[in-house]
């Protein structure tokens, strides 16, 4: 429930980004800026490079040309400083099936100072309250995903980067996530997201259409 | 010995060493001395590879030199002296080959070649290809344009 501190300055900029994969130019001359209160949705057909761009912005992939700046400095200069300010959730949940949701969550938030009570509350919020003793392998795919998403409730980072977070969520889950994102944005945080899901009800939504460059 | 001669053949014009015995042939008249010198130079030492009597120190050359001196003292003319030696040693001893039927080509060969060459030159010039027609005005202009282009690039 902790609101993100609005005072944190979010300033992620990409300038003249060029990315090639296997001799194919995914995008070039790409300029993106993300600041406080932004929600950036990366859209485009399959293979347009949404995930690649997302991973670039998250600093997970360094195979690009152009500039990627966090607060005016190249991302890679002090990567751990940047990493501590942003949350990254790939389309893999990073949930160990042999462990319980709580045990998994503990590991997922281990970089932050989060007490077990807060984790309980977070699990409650994603409607996993009754599964403390159950190993994750007995949970459904959606539920496993919720385990991972539960950390959004406790994440102190101002910038979230999420890859297809709506996958496998049921309607309630989607609603919950939409709310979560909105609160993050309204609280002065920022979200970058890839999704085919329409996020009309968030005011500050911006969309970046990828793959249009393909002639 | 064979070998040494061959060696010298490679690099040296002549295969024998200088001889210095001019003092043996005193002449009263310097003109006679010059005649003797000239004769010795125009006669070939039969023993040597390619050396005249004056410069060779082969024994035969010494003998022949003596003979030439002797004949000169007898008052024989140059032709007589040469004839005497040719009678005994053949035309080989003359560096200046005689003008005979078989030496016509030798004496006239170069001149013939020269004349033939001149004729050929005339022929070639006659058969010269016609020069290309002068360029028309239009072609001139094009050429100029091309030249300018070449210069500017």
């Amino acid at each position, binding site marked *: 429930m902790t609101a993100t501190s609005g005072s944190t300055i979010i300033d992620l900029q990409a300038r003249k980004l060029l990315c090639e994969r296997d001799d194919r130019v995914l995008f070039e001359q790409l300029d993106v800026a993300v600041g406080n209160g932004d929600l950036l949705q990366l859209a485009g057909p399959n293979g347009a490079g949404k995930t690649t761009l997302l991973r670039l912005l998250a600093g997970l*992939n360094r*195979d690009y040309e152009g500039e990627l700046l966090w607060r005016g400095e190249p991302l890679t200069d002090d990567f751990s400083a940047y*990493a501590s300010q942003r949350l990254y959730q790939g*389309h*893999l949940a990073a949930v*160990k099936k042999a*462990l319980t949701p709580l*045990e998994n969550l503990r590991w997922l938030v281990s970089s932050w100072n989060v007490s077990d009570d807060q984790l309980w509350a977070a699990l409650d919020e994603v409607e996993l309250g009754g599964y403390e003793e159950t190993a994750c392998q007995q949970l459904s795919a959606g539920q496993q995903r919720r385990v991972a998403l539960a950390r959004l409730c406790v994440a102190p980072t101002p910038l979230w980067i999420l890859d297809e977070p709506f996958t496998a969520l049921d309607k309630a889950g989607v609603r919950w996530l939409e709310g979560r994102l909105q609160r993050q944005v309204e609280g002065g945080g920022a979200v970058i997201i890839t999704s085919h899901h329409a996020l009309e009800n968030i005011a500050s939504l911006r969309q970046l259409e990828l793959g249009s460059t393909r002639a | 010995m064979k070998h040494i001669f061959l060696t010298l053949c490679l690099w040296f014009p002549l295969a024998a060493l200088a001889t210095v015995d001019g003092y043996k042939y005193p002449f009263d008249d310097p003109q006679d001395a010059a005649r003797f010198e000239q004769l010795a130079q125009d006669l070939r030492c039969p023993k040597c590879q390619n050396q005249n009597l004056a410069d060779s120190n082969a024994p035969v050359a010494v003998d022949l030199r003596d003979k030439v001196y002797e004949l000169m003292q007898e008052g024989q003319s140059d032709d007589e002296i040469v004839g005497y030696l040719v009678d005994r040693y053949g035309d080989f001893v003359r560096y200046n080959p005689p003008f005979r039927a078989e030496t016509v080509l030798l004496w006239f060969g170069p001149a013939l070649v020269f004349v033939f060459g001149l004729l050929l030159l005339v022929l070639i010039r006659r058969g010269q290809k016609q020069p290309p027609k002068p360029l028309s005005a239009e072609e001139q202009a094009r050429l100029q344009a091309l030249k300018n282009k070449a210069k500017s690039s």
Partner: protein
Amino acid sequence: MSLVTATIRRDLLLAARNPGEWLNPLMFFLMVAALFPLAVDPDPTFLSKIAGGVIWVAALLATLLSLDALYKADVDDGSLEQWLASGESLYAMSLGKALVHWCISGLPLTLMAPVLGLMLALPEDAYWALILSLAVGTPVLSLLGAVGAALTAGVRSGGLLLSLLILPLYIPVLIFAASAVYHAGIGMAWNGQIGFLGAMLALALCLTPFASAAALKLNLSR
């Protein structure tokens, strides 16, 4: 709590939840060692000669068996991605992973070895050499193996490839360790070999994590 300790804890927890992960290699270790007397010659004097080598070969294979899964599961379920995203030192991470691997493979083997020594008529003098060589040598196997596991984590059916890559690097360890046991068995000094193993361990400790970290990174740049 840092992510490194959290991971160590989680992996140990996983091992505890899933005992097959470390028990199977241990069983394999025992069975391979047991195959030798059956296949070759049950004569104790002969066995005592080859005991050190056999135990070490078995330990090596057993370690190799468990290596395959070291990073693969983490790559598959996205844990590794999280790791990279966290911005924490991959060096420490690789070291931690190797440590966990040793705890669930090398350590049990080391503890189990005396039993095998009995089965294979290991000369009495050689027990300490065996235990010590395993104690010093198996971490080297884990550390080196972690490099291979990291390299092949993204490769489908990388298990075989892993063996191909890592076995040549294991051979010096095997040679020195087996030599230590053998020397001990015939009553000769074996501190030299242990020294070599120690040197290898020290080097592996500080150098292999670099290689592992680099190898892990390349699995993610997709």
